[in-house]
């Protein structure tokens, strides 16, 4: 839908961003004069403000010292800060991303394989149905403290938390997809001499792909949520840890930096999945978006 990118549309979007940032930056200055119009919640103590967030970003990113002086590249200040400040923004982002990736990867593969096996076997799906329903009824996030207790405050507990929220999502989609494979395709393959394994590989998996992909965009968000919650509960590094530390210090700006980083990470990951999906499902007729 190319028409969405008309210049006036872009102009409107830019204007909305500018108005939002301006209100955030200066809105609370009007609190004294119009206490009813400007709610207490806009207090920078709670929501910070853009200028403070940029400042905090530079500090957490080791570009500036906590006192406001710039860290030089050439004199080694930046490197010293990075070494001393072990959960700086870059390390935190990297660790959170890495754990998200592993949680996503393990969740998607195991969910896919399980969904495929149970989806193609009436017997197994009949046996496991009640167990899956029961486990699926647990809000997965409630398991996070247990997981951290069991796997420690290192990376493993984050990956497991992330896995457990992703696996069911992908499992259910794959299961539904594998159940709904057109019998005509399977018969056609069988009559052309395909073995059961060849049918699985060349018919069941491709026709399930659209279903699997429908779950991947939410899955990547879920993976990120799993890791962050794991880090809230106990971690040495990561964006979740950064948020908890900032909260303890009463620094709204630190939390906002972390949230904005998460937003950017989320957008990039979703876009990557979207590109992959367009490529792998290029056989589908073009649909309106």
């Amino acid at each position, binding site marked *: 839908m190319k028409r969405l990118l008309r210049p006036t549309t872009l102009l409107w979007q830019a204007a909305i961003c500018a108005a939002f940032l301006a209100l955030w930056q200066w809105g609370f200055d009007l609190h004294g004069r119009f206490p009813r119009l400007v709610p207490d919640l806009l207090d920078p103590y709670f929501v910070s403000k853009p200028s403070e967030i940029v400042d905090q970003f530079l500090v957490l990113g080791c570009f500036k010292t906590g006192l406001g002086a710039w860290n030089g590249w050439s004199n080694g200040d930046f490197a010293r800060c990075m070494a001393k400040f072990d959960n700086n923004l870059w390390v935190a982002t990297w660790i959170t991303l890495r754990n998200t990736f592993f949680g996503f990867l393990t969740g998607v593969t195991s969910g896919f394989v399980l969904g495929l096996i149970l989806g193609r076997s009436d017997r197994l799906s009949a046996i496991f149905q009640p167990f899956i329903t029961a486990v699926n009824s647990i809000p997965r996030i409630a398991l996070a403290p247990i997981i951290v207790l069991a796997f420690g405050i290192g990376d493993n507990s984050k990956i497991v938390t992330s896995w457990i929220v992703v696996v069911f999502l992908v499992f259910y989609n794959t299961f539904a997809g594998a159940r709904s494979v057109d019998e005509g395709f399977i*018969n056609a393959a069988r009559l052309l*001499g395909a073995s059961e394994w060849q049918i699985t590989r060349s018919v069941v998996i491709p026709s399930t792909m659209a279903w699997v992909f429908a779950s991947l965009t939410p899955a990547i968000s879920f993976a990120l949520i799993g890791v962050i919650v794991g880090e809230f509960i106990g971690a040495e590094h990561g964006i979740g840890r950064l948020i908890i530390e900032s909260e303890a210090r009463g620094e709204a700006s630190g939390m906002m930096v972390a949230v904005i980083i998460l937003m950017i990470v989320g957008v990039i990951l979703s876009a990557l999945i979207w590109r992959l999906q367009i490529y792998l499902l290029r056989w589908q007729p073009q649909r309106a978006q």
Partner: protein
Amino acid sequence: MLSAARAPRPAPGRSEPGQTRIEVRGLGKSFRLGGTELEAVRDVSFTIAKGEFVALLGPSGSGKSTVLNMIATLLKPSGGEILIDGVRTAPNKASPLVGYVFQKDTLFPWRTVADNIGYGLELAGVAKAERAERVAACIEQAGLRGFADAYPSSLSGGMRQRAALMRTLVVEPQILLMDEPFGALDTHTKIDMHDVLLKIWDREKQTVLFVTHDLSEALTLADRIIMFSARPGRIKEMFSVDLPRPRDAVTLRETPRYAELFQHVWHSLGEEFIKGRAP
């Protein structure tokens, strides 16, 4: 008018003329629908000679597709047996001699036209270069040049069915089972497809079993028509179609012999349509 199998024509390769290719003995099929038993096919027996083109004709619900699907091993017979070249068929073990063309479009939407046609060769482990060559020949034959890399969703119904036909033919099956393959096409496209099929059959002389409820289609294509009666499906009559070959799907219909045969078979078919009607 029960006629014996038509004078057999020489089939390519190792075939011996006059040999029985498909033998169906006392075939029956019942389905359980809800609590009631539905008898779809009752005591059907016939033989098809090598290289013969036979149409199974009958009103819908006369069990002709069920018979075809049992021969293809997609369905398990409730009684009787099917022999292909003297060997009894087993459920879900399709004979490598058999190729099947569906009424419904079963091209894989995630494969291009060329990859769809090459699928059977891929399964058989044919090397890539040979595969490409044979697929290209099929694409040419089906008049699909320029569409090799297109996905099925961008083709018309007729083009899709031609590609589907080629996907079946590329592995050179000796027996072709066709379940109303052109049933969903408009009249023009259908006649085009008849010409395509006739041309291929004149060259390859496969044994063909062609299910249809369209009498003109049966007359255009077949050597012999096996007519089914309304449910439960039984064989009502057989007609031999002595129209000269090679046939042209368009001009054939203008010949007096065609009109004669049409009238003759139509009378018998009409009785079944009336029986099939709700009282």
